[in-house]
């Protein structure tokens, strides 16, 4: 009804857009007059999907856009504490075409995390912004905080242009000085960062930032770095490369000679410790300190009160840089509330209708209970794909020479893969919702069905034949022995974070059936990591299957050791490669080839013909050697959303690498009633 009456009003008021905007702005309803949307663009054509720059948009509209804002700010504007909206917005705001409708202001978006730094990335995504973002097709990179960007032909230099008149949440101008400050005084400061983070180094040399004017800056790299934008819009989307210089100056020794003394007065040993209390690359961490209430940000919502051990509360940023296509400043939703609850309680809270959107950590095992409760109407359940049945990797570079001999025989890995009954696993563990599949990068154009189905048949006969061929004879109890005649026993030290006990028990059964004894032992995640680093685990599972944007920006996820902080195998191989043979251990020929391809990939333009060739070859090498054994892919990740929330698009993926659910545009969400 509301929508209907508004639509008819829109028709009537069309010629007097400005008056309508004022009228509705004042009454708390965002203006719906002449609101081009994704569903109905009213003839507006944009360069980037669903968003436009103001000049471009007004040009097509044939008139100036009048701005209005959340009534939440009205009192402060009237009292002179806040300038009116037209002065708060950048001179060049971004115009967002909402999915369905221009919304209305108000409401609280309620979410939950486990603790201050545990499972918080989804709520962070509700407000987070970066220079660029990923469009809904999960491939195109579009402007966000930056108005535009352009690469040099050799992809060594990228130029970003910021929005003229863009302001921090306290009204202070946001300029290239804040970017230069981030690079020269934070990232490249030896005290704060003994080593410059990997993404800002090419060929071992850190990035050089060059200020052109107040809105334009260039980043110069020592070599081509075509993966940068993909990093900034996926895995690195939480690490915005700018920081409010005017706010952090007083904590920094370079700008405040008394910073050390000030730090001591505040109870910290020196300025570095103090600085790390108030600033962190991971913007979420900063909000913990009480000082964060005054910390300016560009995000859609800012801290409303000090965070404590129970909750964090946010309120709309009066200086947010986006407007909808009718000129209403975003975000529509006035407040965000993040409560810290234990995992089981989160589920209860969802069923109770106390959570407005949640995907992170809901867990497929809760699918039946959620489905059962969905009919009560307190939440809508969607199932975007994004989880994958955890992969298994044998430690090819095992410390024990006998086990190394066995594991590094490719027939062993083939046999182990063929012994697994993936269909049964899918039915037993995941309600049959997944697809049995080999372990492969996801969403990449160079993976074929042949790759997906490689060595995933359930064929214990062939597995037995391969093991016999290897010479792993059966002993008196019909279980296989090692080459040295001792019983072959695999110790599977797993953590519930990466595999359920049901998972490991099923696989244990499959492998026992082909004569391989497996002992299970659950240990903590900390321990698995330490053991993996020491290289004396038999099986490692801690591999985040990369999506294409991750592969573009962090190709080392697909070459040994696959995960630096918690390696699958081959840490010494990489050492050998990096030290050009000085340190570590010489890798086999196939791994050497992978490293070669990795180096070339880093300088190759995504989706170019050479990119496709390298991708295909890397997939082939990894598959021929069965470096990682996959089980089931495309498992859905239950995602709940309040049915009253509008402008929520159907999600196509649910994964950390996309900052949780995607396409995700919470700044245009609003409550229908």
């Amino acid at each position, binding site marked *: 009804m509301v929508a209907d009456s508004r639509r008819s009003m829109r028709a009537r008021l069309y010629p007097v857009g400005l008056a309508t905007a004022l009228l509705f702005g004042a009454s708390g309803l965002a203006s719906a007059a002449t609101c081009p949307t994704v569903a109905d663009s009213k003839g507006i054509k944009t360069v980037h999907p669903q968003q436009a720059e103001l000049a471009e948009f007004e040009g097509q509209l044939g008139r100036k856009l009048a701005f209005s804002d959340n009534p939440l700010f009205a009192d402060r504007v009237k009292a002179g504490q806040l300038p009116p909206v037209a002065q708060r917005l950048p001179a060049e705001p971004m115009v967002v075409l909402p999915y369905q409708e221009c919304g209305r202001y108000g409401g609280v978006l309620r979410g939950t995390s486990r603790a201050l730094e545990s499972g918080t990335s989804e709520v962070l995504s509700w407000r987070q912004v970066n220079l660029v973002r990923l469009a809904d097709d999960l491939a195109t990179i579009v402007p966000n905080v930056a108005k535009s960007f352009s690469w040099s032909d050799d992809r060594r230099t990228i130029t970003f242009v910021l929005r003229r008149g863009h302001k921090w949440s306290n009204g202070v101008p946001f300029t290239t000085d804040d970017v230069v400050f981030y690079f020269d005084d934070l990232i490249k400061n030896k005290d704060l960062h003994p080593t410059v983070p990997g993404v800002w180094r090419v060929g071992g040399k850190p990035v050089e930032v060059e200020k052109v004017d107040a809105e334009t800056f260039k980043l110069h790299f020592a070599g081509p770095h075509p993966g940068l934008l993909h990093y900034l819009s996926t895995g690195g989307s939480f690490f915005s490369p700018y920081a409010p210089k005017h706010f952090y100056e007083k904590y920094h020794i370079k700008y405040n000679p008394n910073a050390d003394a000030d730090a001591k007065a505040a*109870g910290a040993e020196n300025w570095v410790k103090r600085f790390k209390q108030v600033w962190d690359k991971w913007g979420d961490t900063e909000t913990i300190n009480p000082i964060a209430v005054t910390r300016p940000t560009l995000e859609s919502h800012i801290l409303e009160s000090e965070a404590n051990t129970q909750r964090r509360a946010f309120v709309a940023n009066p200086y947010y840089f986006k407007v909808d296509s009718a000129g209403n400043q975003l975000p529509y939703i006035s407040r965000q509330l993040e409560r810290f609850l234990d995992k089981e309680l989160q589920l*209860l809270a969802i069923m109770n209708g106390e959570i407005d959107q949640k995907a992170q950590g809901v867990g497929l095992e809760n699918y039946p209970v959620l489905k059962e409760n969905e009919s009560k109407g307190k939440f809508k359940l969607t199932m975007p794909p994004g989880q994958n049945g955890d992969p298994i990797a044998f430690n090819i570079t095992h410390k024990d020479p006998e086990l190394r001999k066995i594991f590094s025989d490719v027939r062993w890995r083939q046999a182990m893969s063929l012994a697994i009954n993936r269909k049964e696993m899918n039915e037993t563990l995941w309600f049959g919702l997944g697809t049995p599949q080999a372990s492969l990068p996801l969403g990449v154009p160079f993976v074929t069905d042949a790759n997906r189905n490689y060595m995933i048949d359930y064929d214990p006969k062939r597995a037995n034949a391969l093991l016999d061929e290897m010479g792993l004879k059966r002993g008196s109890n019909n279980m296989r022995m090692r080459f040295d005649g001792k019983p072959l026993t695999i110790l599977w030290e797993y953590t519930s974070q990466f595999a359920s006990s049901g998972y490991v028990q099923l696989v244990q059964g499959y492998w026992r059936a082909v004569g391989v004894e497996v002992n299970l032992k659950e240990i903590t995640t900390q321990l698995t990591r330490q053991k993996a680093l020491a290289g004396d685990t038999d099986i490692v599972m801690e591999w985040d299957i990369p999506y294409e944007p991750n592969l573009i920006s962090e190709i080392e996820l697909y070459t040994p050791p696959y995960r630096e902080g918690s390696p699958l195998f081959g840490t010494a191989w990489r050492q050998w490669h990096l030290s050009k043979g000085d340190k570590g251990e010489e890798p086999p020929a196939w791994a050497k080839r992978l490293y070669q391809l990795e180096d070339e990939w880093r300088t190759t333009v995504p989706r170019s013909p050479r990119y496709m060739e390298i991708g295909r070859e890397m997939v082939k090498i990894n598959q021929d050697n069965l470096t990682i054994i996959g089980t089931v892919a495309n498992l859905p990740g239950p995602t709940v959303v309040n049915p009253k929330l509008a402008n929520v698009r159907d999600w196509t993926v649910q994964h950390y690498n996309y900052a949780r659910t995607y396409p995700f545009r919470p700044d245009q969400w609003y409550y229908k009633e």
Partner: protein
Amino acid sequence: MLRLIARRLGYMLLTLWLVSIVAFIVIQLPPGDYAEAYVAERAQSGARMSEEEIQELRSHLGIDRPWYQQYFSWFSGVLRGDFGWSYEWRRPVADVIGERLPLTLALAFFTLLFMYAVSLPIGIYSAVRQYSVTDHVFSLFGYIGLATPNFLIALVLMYLGQQYWGQSVGGLFSPEFQDAPWSWARFVDLLAHLWIPVVVLGTAGTANLIRSMRALLLDELGKMYVVAARAAGLSPLRLLIKYPVRMALNPIVSTLGWRLTFVISGAPIVGVVMALPDTGPLFLHALLNQDMPLAGAMVFIYCALTIIGTFVSDMLLVLLDPRIKMS
């Protein structure tokens, strides 16, 4: 007497110091450190941290130093009354604990109130009407209360609260009252949430108290002075309340000192299950994450309270019972 107190105080300080070392070592015992726990938490949401970043975190927090150095810098702070900064919450430990103390105390107070209010009348009744049907019924419930794990009762009550009474899940306030200033409505909201943890936390203690009250009173009831008083024609109720109950209460009251720790520590498991904003879950998280400053401070405070509580009840006993020699 003064010498005794001085000597006891000396021992107390020594014990506290030893406890601080043991606590420090025990907290460090599990494999890994806070940095590892942090990496694991990050990994849980899919975020990767490079080895360099982990090392930076370690050196920033100073947990890359040998344990005795860490201990020294921690304990010298404690001596000055400064418990340092919590790794996890990135705030001074005193702030973190302080935030949760008022509700912990409120919870403990109401729980104690509940325990005594329920158990004493029932205990007295059971003793007076020994082996009656009611006594057996109360005993049965008492044993069930003793035998059922707290967290299970918590889960059941919470499910009922959520499913049938439309209560918000977890915590002691509905979300809309969480940050509101104190008002009558907020107080009522608190009471509406408070009863579940109070019942859960009080159940085992209540069952326990009923049993001891019953046993103690039964001892007293058979004594000569009771028979004498009854023979003298004292009204039964007055006799009961004035003499045997008072005697039976003595041991129960003298154990009140022990409850000092309980008051501060909350109950970690129940606290976690119900997301109570008391110190219990805080303590558990600090231990799991090896957040040394916070966990250390809490162990230290618990121990200090236990030692002080024991000292106080010892002193009380000496004062009350001249048979205990002052040596």
